[in-house]
């Protein structure tokens, strides 16, 4: 019999097995894809990718899709960029992550975590938006002509709204500010652009001796369908990406 058994060592080995967390299949897959278990773990702790948040996003877009089917209001395309912008603002950052200071001293770069989480949140919201969009489209005559355009066109403003939300959240160090900026800017743009579009329609109708009522669905959707806005959306997204890059540069707060 060996009397020199190191019970502490035995216990540590037992504890290691008892306390160990068993990552799910998606996390294991992400670890393999990202080639970093740390980055995968950081991804799966993203607040806006947790189940309650995802359920909330599905509910909002689901209600949007139902409203669109029922009343013909183009809600999915208006909601999707806003929902995604909030999700992105709440993905990662100094105003959100309680252990931000500690995260900044880790070999897995905080910029990489930010990028991974932002891409994942964007992809999830894009998929949810596309599903809602596909479910709601084709039910109204006005949508028929622009179905293909509308199915994908909102991805561009969504990119711009998300980039703006992320840039503000990172620069101001506040997830609330980022979400407010993304949603606010998108809302302001939709209303302003649809008012302009509606004015043009009204003017045309008056020329023909007719009058139109409140904002039309097509006017509301014009922030998505107007091809003239595509380039500005891309420009905004590029500028915001540059802001994020600058705000997370190594010599600002971090080495």
């Amino acid at each position: 019999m060996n009397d020199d058994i190191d019970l502490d060592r035995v216990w540590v080995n037992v504890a290691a097995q008892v306390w160990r967390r068993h990552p799910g299949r998606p996390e294991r897959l992400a670890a393999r894809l990202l080639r970093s278990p740390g980055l995968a773990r950081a991804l799966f702790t993203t607040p806006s990718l947790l189940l309650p948040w995802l359920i909330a996003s599905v509910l909002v877009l689901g209600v949007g899709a139902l409203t669109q089917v029922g009343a013909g209001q183009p809600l999915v395309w208006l909601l999707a960029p806003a929902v995604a912008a909030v999700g992105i603002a709440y993905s990662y950052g100094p105003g959100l992550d309680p252990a931000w200071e500690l995260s900044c001293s880790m070999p897995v770069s905080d910029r990489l975590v930010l990028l991974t989480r932002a891409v994942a949140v964007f992809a999830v919201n894009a998929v949810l938006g596309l599903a809602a969009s596909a479910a709601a489209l084709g039910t109204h005559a006005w949508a028929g002509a622009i179905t293909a355009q509308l199915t994908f066109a909102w991805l561009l403003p969504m990119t711009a709204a998300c980039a703006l939300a992320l840039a503000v959240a990172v620069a101001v160090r506040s997830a609330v500010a980022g979400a407010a900026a993304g949603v606010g800017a998108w809302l302001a743009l939709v209303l302003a652009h649809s008012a302009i579009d509606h004015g043009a329609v009204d003017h045309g109708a008056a020329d023909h001796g007719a009058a139109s009522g409140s904002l039309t669905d097509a006017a509301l959707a014009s922030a998505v369908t107007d091809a003239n806005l595509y380039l500005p959306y891309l420009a905004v997204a590029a500028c915001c990406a540059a802001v994020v890059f600058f705000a997370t540069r190594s010599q600002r707060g971090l080495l």
Partner: protein
Amino acid sequence: MNIELTDVTRTFGRNKAVDGVSLAVGPGVFGLLGPNGAGKTSLLRMLATVLPPSSGTLRLLDRDPGRAGARTEIRRRLGYLPQSLGYYPSFTVAEFVEYFALLKEMPAHQVPKAVATAVERVELGPRAKARLRTLSGGMLRRVGIAQAIVNDPDLLLLDEPTAGLDPEQRVAFRSLIRDLGQQATVVVSTHLVEDVGAACTEVALMAEGKVVFRGTPGELTARGEGHEVGDSALERGYSAVLAAARKQVHA
């Protein structure tokens, strides 16, 4: 030397938090003493590669943290307990320590045992599966220490590690850092003089962003002879050096 600072300065706007500090520190437990606002936390954040110096040169573990590749290598061998440890309330103790072990890029197969060892070393074994939101302030501090030591770091930086610990836990903590200091460089920033006396092999005292004393705890004690402010010999030494430094600044 694991830490080499040459004329390091860090400014925030017009405020000079760290003012021309030069230090070389090897393995052992190094105490960083000073009153609030002396610049200890800013210095520690620079050592943790969280904050770059405004000027001067900094080398950690024989590497330049200004270079991305070297910085990553330093961070793999670094343990850091910030003054204010943010935590995820829904994580368990073991999950929190595991999270940072993974972010420190430890090989995945080594992580469970490293987590168990770190949790046991801070005597949190019975609470390993407890959610962080259910823990007391002292326990959370120990969770912070556990994540800092999980990778068996060569450079361990602890900012006010004994805040919230009861006397018994502080005694156990001092024993732990003495043990860690056998191999690694442990820097303990504190304003609790007795922690330094009991655990540190060397001490630096900071005031107004500058290092105004460097020596052994015994040498600091000797500076207090004839000085009346302070309840212990070491406190009298601390007060005497601080008073002299303030007089020099105001002169």
